[in-house]
C-alpha cells in the first residue's frame, strides 16, 4: 500500500469509508415525522404507579430516524 495514495488528516490516514461521514442528522434537521411526543407520552409510569424520573421527560433525544441502506444508528450497547 502506498502512503501517497491514502488521504491523510492531521490525525493520520483515514479508511476509505470515513470520507462519507456526515454531521449528526439530529442536529442537521428535525425529526423525520415532525413529531414531538407529548409530555404525557414521556411519562413512563409503571403499573404500580411509581413514576419514572422526570428530568428526562422533556428530552427529544430518542433517535427515531435510523434505518435505510446504510445501517442503524447504533447506540452504545452495554451487552
Amino acid at each position, binding site marked *: 500500500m502506498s502512503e501517497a495514495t491514502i488521504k491523510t488528516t492531521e490525525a493520520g490516514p483515514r479508511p476509505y469509508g470515513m470520507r462519507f461521514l456526515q454531521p449528526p442528522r439530529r442536529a442537521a434537521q428535525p425529526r423525520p415525522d415532525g413529531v414531538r411526543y407529548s409530555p404525557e407520552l414521556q411519562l413512563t409510569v409503571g403499573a404500580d404507579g*411509581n413514576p419514572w424520573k422526570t428530568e428526562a421527560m422533556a428530552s427529544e433525544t430518542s433517535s427515531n430516524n435510523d434505518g435505510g441502506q*446504510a445501517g442503524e444508528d447504533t447506540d452504545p450497547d452495554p451487552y
Partner: protein
Amino acid sequence: MRSPNRTVMVLTSQPDTTADLVVRKLNERDVPVFRFDTTAFPTEATMAAQLGGGWGGGMRLGERELELDRVGSAYYRRPGEFAMPASISPAARRFAAAQSRAGLLGVLVSLDCLWVNHPGRNADASYKPWQLTVAEHVGLRPPRTLITNDPDAARRFAKDIDGPVIYKTLAGGVVDDDGVPKGMPTSVVDPDGLDDSIALCAHQFQEWVDKQHEVRLTVVGDEFFAAEIHAGSDDAHVDWRNDYASLSYEIADVPDDVRRGVVELMRSFGLVFGALDFVVTPAGEWRFLEINPNGQWGWIETVTGLPIATALAELLQRGTTT
C-alpha cells in the same frame, strides 16, 4: 401458558420516547412494568440474585423492586453504558464496569422469560455479512456484495458490476476525531476514488439496485407491519435518511415468498423483533438490504398508523411467541 400479569422488564435509556409508547400500552393493560437503564447500576440500582433452580432474588431501584422470578418478558431497547462512581480511579471504574456488565446482564439474560430481543441474538444478527448470508439462503435476494480491505478487489468488483456501486458501513456508532458521533449514509462510489485507504479496514461494497421505492418492514412476533417509503428527492433516492422531509409513506402488503423468507431469517437468528429494509425494484421484486434487530419503529407507527406499539405490548404481556 404463563400466569397473567408477570412483570415486563424494560431496559432502555430514560429519554427513550419509543419505549414510552410500549410502556403506555402496558400501563393501559395493567401489566406491571419495571423500567430501568443499566446506567443506573451500580450507583442507583442494587441486585441480589441467588442461584437455586434459576435465579431468585431481585433488584431495587429507588422505591421500586423487581422479583426476578416474576419477570415474564424483557424488552431490550437502548440501555446505556454502565456508569461507575466518579470518585473511584479509572482502573477501578474499568474493573467495576466489566464486573457489573457480566454480573447484572449475565443474570438478566438467563432469566426464564421472553426477550424482545435477547441481546445475544441482537449481537449475532448485527453482523451484516451474516445477515446477508442467511438472507441469500432463505431466498431474500440481497444485492451482490463485496467485503474487503483489498483495494484491487474493490476496483475489480466495481468493474465487474458494470453499473453503480455503493458503499455502506458494516457497523454503526461512528465517532469522529472531534468526538462527535456522525452518520454515514449509503453513498454511490466513484470508481476512480477507490484508493489504497480501503486497506485500512474492512469495507462493504454492493451493486446499486434500482428501486421503485423502499420498504421498512417491522416484525413483531408473527405480525408484519410493512411501510413503503417513497423518496421525493435525489438524495433520498440513494438513502432515504438523507432527506426525511421529502419522504412519503404507504402501508404495504408483503408478498408470500418474502414473508416466508423473513420468518426463516428471524428464526435462524432467534429474533422475535426486527426492522428490515428492502428495495422494491421497478419490476416489483423485493430485495433484502438488511435487518436491524433492534431497529427504530416509532416514526413508522406515527406516519402510517400501523399499531406496532400495541403488537409489542401484546407480545410482552403474553410472554411467549406461541
